């Protein structure tokens, strides 16, 4: 029971971090139709900026300043890069963001070097916060969950309850009308893209300190973010939220289970041993395959429900 609860909390907190990561991507996609391959690079930039700020002003300043800086970078990218490429269509946009990801990674290599930085959890958040039947639960993970939930609520409020959210939503479906009403639609898109980048940056601030801040961090989360967006449904914020939690828990619980096909066979009374053909396949434990499961889920989702859990648009 204790084990189950700890794994459940681990799964939820990891899932919420994944949500922070993917929310920006899904918002940008749903509002602008741009699939941003450089999204994970903004996550990385967030961690590096936060590290840089924290060496001078401390962790909390980094938490606020870094996402804003990443947002500015995102806006600049939209204004001077993406907007120029936009008229050449979606493929050009895709290639642009793809190249941008490499550029950002190389820039990080040049500025901060190739090894991991010493970006740490601040002492105030270090240590256990409560015990689950004897197992201490880390305060930082709880903090991570709070930030993520706060982010979800504020994005949702901003999009549905504020004027700017209204304009953004209108600009999505009827850009000409909105423009005719005197709103600057390109600027709205720039803000949206910058906002998406800032969300990724915030995830980077939190994730970089929790795990590791190194030039490989963008590549390592890039694929999983796309899995979440696809599983949740392209462009659906709620879908991304559900998919993040699902994948976080799926991974955590499958790591806990040392089941294998060989075990299943022996349950049916079939004896499978090292001499059986394809033994190495039957003997793979679920815990060993855990990191692949999200991708399997994505493939199955694309086959049986291409629009994702809560997606609205096809393809």
């Amino acid at each position, binding site marked *: 029971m204790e084990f189950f609860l700890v794994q459940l909390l*681990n*799964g939820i907190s990891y899932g919420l971090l994944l949500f922070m990561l993917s929310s920006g991507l899904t918002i940008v996609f749903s509002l602008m139709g741009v699939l941003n391959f450089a999204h994970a690079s903004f996550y990385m930039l967030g961690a590096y900026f936060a590290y840089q700020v924290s060496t001078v002003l401390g962790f909390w300043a980094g938490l606020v300043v870094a996402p804003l800086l990443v947002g500015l970078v995102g806006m600049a990218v939209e204004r001077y890069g993406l907007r120029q490429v936009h008229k050449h269509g979606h493929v050009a946009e895709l290639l642009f963001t793809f190249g941008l990801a490499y550029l950002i990674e190389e820039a990080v290599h040049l500025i901060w070097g190739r090894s991991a930085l010493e970006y740490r959890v601040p002492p105030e958040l270090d240590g256990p916060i409560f015990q689950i039947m004897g*197992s201490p639960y*880390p305060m*930082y993970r709880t903090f991570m969950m709070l930030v993520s939930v706060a982010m979800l609520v504020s994005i949702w409020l901003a999009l549905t309850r504020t004027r700017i959210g209204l304009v953004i939503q209108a600009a999505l479906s009827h850009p000409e009308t909105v423009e005719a009403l005197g709103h600057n639609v390109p600027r709205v898109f720039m803000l949206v893209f910058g906002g998406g980048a800032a969300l990724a940056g915030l995830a980077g601030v939190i994730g970089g300190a929790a795990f590791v801040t190194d030039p490989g961090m963008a590549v390592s989360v890039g694929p999983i973010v796309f899995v979440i967006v696809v599983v949740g449904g392209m462009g659906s914020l709620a879908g991304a939220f559900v998919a993040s939690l699902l994948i976080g828990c799926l991974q955590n619980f499958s*790591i806990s289970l040392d089941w294998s096909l060989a075990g299943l066979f022996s349950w049916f009374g079939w004896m499978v041993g090292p001499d059986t053909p394809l033994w190495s396949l039957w003997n793979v434990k679920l*815990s060993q395959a855990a990191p692949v499961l999200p991708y399997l889920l994505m493939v199955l989702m694309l086959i049986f429900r291409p629009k994702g859990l809560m997606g609205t648009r096809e393809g």
Partner: protein
Amino acid sequence: MLRQAIDRGARYVVQGQSSAVAAALIEAINRHNEREPARAVLFLNYAATDPALTEARCSFWHFRFDAHIGMRMEALTAHLARDASVRRVYLVVQDYSFGHEFARAARQLLAERRPDIQVVGEDRHPMGQVRDFAPYIAKIRAAQADAVLTGNWGNDLNLLVKAAREAGLQARFHTFYAGSPGAVPAMGEAAVGRVSDITDWHANAASPATLRAAARFRDRHGADYHFARAATLMRMLAAAAQRAGSAEPLRVAYALEGLRIDTDSGEAEMRRLDHQLLLPLLVAGLERSAANGGPREVRMEAERSGLGWRTLARLPAYVSAAPTACRMQRPPPPG
């Protein structure tokens, strides 16, 4: 590249990156030496640790100055065998050939040395992919392991150790790579009193002469001195050349065989049978440095991290001297 070097007159190759590179070099050098015995080349390896290089693939022309994986595992299990408090062991390895070999060797040697120790779990995870090790730590805790053996290196090691600290796991981590450059600052405080490393040398087990060399090295390159065995290699090469009275690779190779040398950690000997250096190993634990409130003997810090290594046990060369199945072809000895 090898071709180019040989054409320019190089007769010694010193290399220590990956075992795959080392294996390719051995092949190429074997072939070259067979064709042109008059211009034979000798390969001195200071770090590639696949046991096969001095077993199935062993060659007269290859000498290894580092302890291979099997030897390190012999040392690690011998150390664990002495510790009566260790009863339940958990294995965490990366899911590739080295990790599998690590786990297999650990199980086999533990069963031989301490049959009462139970291996309560084994996790293979993809290399360099896992960000969040919390679920693995929860599993280790649930298995009530009191020692974790891991072959992980790089981020896979740092994140594992950090997650263990977050979850307040008390088990000690026994590693092969916590001493590699960059690892200590990355693990940081999380590793204090929690991480042990099997190594041939560390700065707090160094002789005054090596410490002076290390200080000079730091002044010149601004980095810590890690590879004391590279110096051992050079000293042995010089001694062998002197003994042979020649710098001719064939003569030097024969002179290297059976050569003994004093290192900072104790006496080492180049085994004639497979050209593997039998060297004393240390079990080192990470502590706060003396300047940072740690034990007095931890004078030298690892990479200015405020932490340093402390010798927990010294294992003389015979402890890790694994038997070998090497049958090498030997060229006729020089007249």
